[in-house]
């Protein structure tokens, strides 16, 4: 059990040794988490921290988050050994390994600690090591900007979390986190929750606090993006679940509010995803979408807890946790894949790519399950967790807040439709058709060290679907921690439905196999002609539909997207250009101008900063004198 607390040893000089050690550490922690989830006794470790009792404890909720963390971390370490070799001269490989280890250790600590102060310490180590990881390629200005924006945002969020933890300590009578018995809400509880939502929403990238996320995740090395998206964002979800589990209850309006917030984030995230040209930014926006979906689950669970509806509680929290796992699997797969693409082509702009399925057949084959899973299509894992959330929403339509759940239902359906646009575009523009530029001309599959981790994740996207029946009691254990004494066993609630669902998904594969078998013996023309392009004699790769035009139907409605095209009038028009720019409506459109105005105001104080030491000493003297006078006069004044 102690393996969970084994810190991942940061790099030694020998790259292979550090890879082995890191992977081994993650494997042990993964096994420990799996053991805890499969019904092992929760183990704990008591000690003193800053004159207070502190405890590390591995319960089902901790293990539910440790499991994806160490899955992605272990595979990421193996993948990173090839993706970013330690000897790469300009590659800062050592600092990358060092902070990767630190990030994983900090998150491990974060998930097992039961002490408010230690939680904040772990939170801070996590935030700062993520900053250094995002900043890996700090010779590029856009990377520097992204990482600094991230650092400022995460610390703004930490302020709210700190306030929440302090209030919580007031409520619990100390920094030790032991749950209060269910009962009436205290007067502080609402504030604790509001501050927690504010702070943790920053980390989870919920609207409107998401704007740091796309740039940071796109700039980081791909296996780092994977762990940031797949796990670090979910520390926000973990925080919400953990803090609310300590309190005696949750007000019902907060459940509906969180549901609405998640619904809006999901739609906003996916709508922005479909407009991106940079495929890593696209994946990052899709993380906002998925975190929105998870938040919807948490909101449903909170509503259920507040109304005392065990059915809703179980479906909401169960769906949220299940989607945490599934999103971790398919999003890290997609980010690993994007790293393979970046490695092979050197560009993040998908408009220059195309036809890579022919040049990188294995990568294309491995990524297709990920794409289908992120679009939540059966029989892949993303569908199963969304099925839970749908059931929760429908249950909430009957028993919970019908208005917010109706809105969320619309949002979830709409998200599904737009995700299909975004990811048909992602896969189609990058892998299918023919190459649009020289970038993809020499692309090739990465080596086995990168392909095997991706293959494992791809197998899991399908495997989770068929192995998910034994997962139901595991989810129950987690729900029991999140909502003490309220959950119902999922196996009796949805066991039969789930079994039939899986049967049908199996049938889907059988029917597909049969149809394929029927196609096989069909005779095939010996000669392969070019694609029939409606009689056009000399089709070129440039004539293909681009990603921008593919998404135009929806992207033009986004406030952040501007298109510039000159109208073509003459009979024999000359060459024209089309320009499109995609900004984030909230981050770049609203907040950046506002912050610039604030910064301009604050610049007035710049004149006090002269650069002469003597002037600064004068400031100190004047201040001291002022304080002295105030102290002197205060006694005389009738206050």
């Amino acid at each position, binding site marked *: 059990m102690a393996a969970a607390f084994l810190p991942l040893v940061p790099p030694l000089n020998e790259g292979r040794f550090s890879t082995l050690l890191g992977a081994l550490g993650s494997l042990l922690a993964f096994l420990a988490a799996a053991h805890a989830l499969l019904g092992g006794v929760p183990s704990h470790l008591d000690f003193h921290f800053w004159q207070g009792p502190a405890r590390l404890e591995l319960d089902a909720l901790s293990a539910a988050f440790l499991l994806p963390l160490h899955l992605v971390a272990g595979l990421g370490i193996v993948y990173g050994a090839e993706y970013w070799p330690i000897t790469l001269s300009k590659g800062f490989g050592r600092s990358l390994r060092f902070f990767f280890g630190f990030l994983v250790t900090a998150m491990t600590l974060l998930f097992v600690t039961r002490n408010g102060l230690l939680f904040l310490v772990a939170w801070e180590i996590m935030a700062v090591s993520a900053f250094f990881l995002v900043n890996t390629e700090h010779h590029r200005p856009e990377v520097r900007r992204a990482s600094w924006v991230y650092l400022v945002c995460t610390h703004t969020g930490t302020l709210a979390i700190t306030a929440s933890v302090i209030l919580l300590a007031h409520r619990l009578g100390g920094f030790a986190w032991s749950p209060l018995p269910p009962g009436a809400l205290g007067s502080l509880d609402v504030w604790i929750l509001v501050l927690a939502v504010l702070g943790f929403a920053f980390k989870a990238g919920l609207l409107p606090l998401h704007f740091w996320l796309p740039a940071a995740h796109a700039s980081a090395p791909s296996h780092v993006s994977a762990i940031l998206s797949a796990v670090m964002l979910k520390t926000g979800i973990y925080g919400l679940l953990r803090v609310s589990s300590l309190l005696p209850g949750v007000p019902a309006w907060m459940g509906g509010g969180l549901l609405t917030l998640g619904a809006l984030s999901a739609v906003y995230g996916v709508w922005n995803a479909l407009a991106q040209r940079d495929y890593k930014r696209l994946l990052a926006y899709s993380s906002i979408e998925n975190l929105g979906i998870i938040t919807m689950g948490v909101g449903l669970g909170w509503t259920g807890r507040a109304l005392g509806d065990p059915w809703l509680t179980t479906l909401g929290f169960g769906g949220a946790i299940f989607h945490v796992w599934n999103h971790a699997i398919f999003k890290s797969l997609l980010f690993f894949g994007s790293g393979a693409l970046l490695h092979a082509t050197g560009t993040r702009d998908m408009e220059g790519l*195309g*036809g890579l*399925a*022919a040049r990188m057949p294995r990568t*294309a*084959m491995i990524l297709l399950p990920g794409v*289908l899973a992120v*679009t939540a*299509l*059966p029989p892949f894992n993303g*569908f199963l967790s*969304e*099925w839970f959330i*749908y*059931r929760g929403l*429908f249950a909430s*339509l*009957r028993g919970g807040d019908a208005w917010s759940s*109706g809105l969320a*239902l*619309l949002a979830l*359906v*709409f998200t*599904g*439709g*737009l995700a*299909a*646009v975004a990811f*048909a575009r992602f896969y*189609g523009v990058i892998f*299918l*058709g*023919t190459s649009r530029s020289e970038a993809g001309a020499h692309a090739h599959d990465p080596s086995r060290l990168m392909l095997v981790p991706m293959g494992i994740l791809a197998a899991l996207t399908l495997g989770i679907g068929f192995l998910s029946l034994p997962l139901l009691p595991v989810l129950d254990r987690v729900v029991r921690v999140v909502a003490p004494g309220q959950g119902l066993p999922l196996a009796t609630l*949805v066991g039969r439905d789930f079994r*039939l*669902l899986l049967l*049908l998904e199996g049938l*889907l*594969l059988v*029917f*597909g196999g049969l*149809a*394929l078998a*029927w*196609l096989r013996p*069909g*005779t*095939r*023309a010996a000669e*392969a*002609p070019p*694609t*029939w*392009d*409606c009689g056009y004699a000399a*089709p070129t790769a440039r004539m293909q*539909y681009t990603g921008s*035009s*593919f998404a135009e*139907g929806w992207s033009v409605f986004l406030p952040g997207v501007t298109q510039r095209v000159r109208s073509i009038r003459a009979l024999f028009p000359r060459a024209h250009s089309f320009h499109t720019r995609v900004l984030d409506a909230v981050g770049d459109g609203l907040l950046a101008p506002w912050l610039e105005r604030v910064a301009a105001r604050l610049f007035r104080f710049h004149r006090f900063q002269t650069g002469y030491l003597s002037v600064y000493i004068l400031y100190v003297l004047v201040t001291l004198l002022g304080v002295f006078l105030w102290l002197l006069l205060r006694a005389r004044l009738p206050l």
Partner: protein
Amino acid sequence: MSQALLPTLLNILFRAFVVLLLPPLIPGIITKIKAWMAGRSGPPVLQLYYDLAKLARKQAVFSRTTTWVFLAGPVGTVAALLVASLLIPLGHTAPLLAFEGDVILFAYLLGLGRFLTVLSALDTGSAFEGMGAAREVSFSALAEPALFFGFAALARATGSLSLTPMLQSHGMWTAGHLSGPLMLILAGWGIVFLAENSRIPVDDPNTHLELTMIHEVMVLDHSGRPLALILYGASLKLVVLGALLVDPLLPVLSKGWLNGLALLGGLALLAVVVGLVESTTARFRMNKVPQFLVAGVLASAFAFLLLLV
């Protein structure tokens, strides 16, 4: 046991007939009606059967741009629709499989088929197929909410999340406060039906101009057996979504076989109606299509709101 076995067996046979053999007839009826309305005699009603038989024997031509993804479209669509057809009740006959939450699987199976078709269209690298693919995914993002709001309204009315109780609750027409929402739902679903099956006024399956197509342009490069699968899949989709529309309208009859016959009659009537609509209306301009789909969403959403308050 043997008494219960026979009806089940007959039920399975009936389903197999409706799902495997009947579908190509429906487009035949539509085409025939359109031909009659235009004063032509038109191709035989069984034309699609002949086409499928011919395509099954023909060589398939694969463009040199394509990869294995090219086959995923036809295979995935047919597989997804076959599974969806197991879930949908056919008239008032007993369903084979029903469970709480099967509506979600049903809707997402349609999505799976569509997504794979879009990918195989993009696999050809053709400008026109890309255009069709973009339109298909963009428009279906509006069709899905219409479908789901209908489900949500029915879920609220029947207290169930399974297609069978939702569509077979014949009592809804007589309960005064439910018949209005039900009519709205059917109006919304009617629009979904036309859009999903690429029918006029959303899309014209017989147009000769690729620029104006949505669905047909995506399968331009398919030939031989893959094309046969696509054509069969399209007709199966007519039946599956048609059953969604027809089921709530059917009366409950005393005998099982009468119920089956009622479904067949309903589907044939639906085909006639589609033929009449296609003969009397023109296809919308492409920028009007989203408005039409939004009208469908609003109809279902209004039904949902009526049941909410």
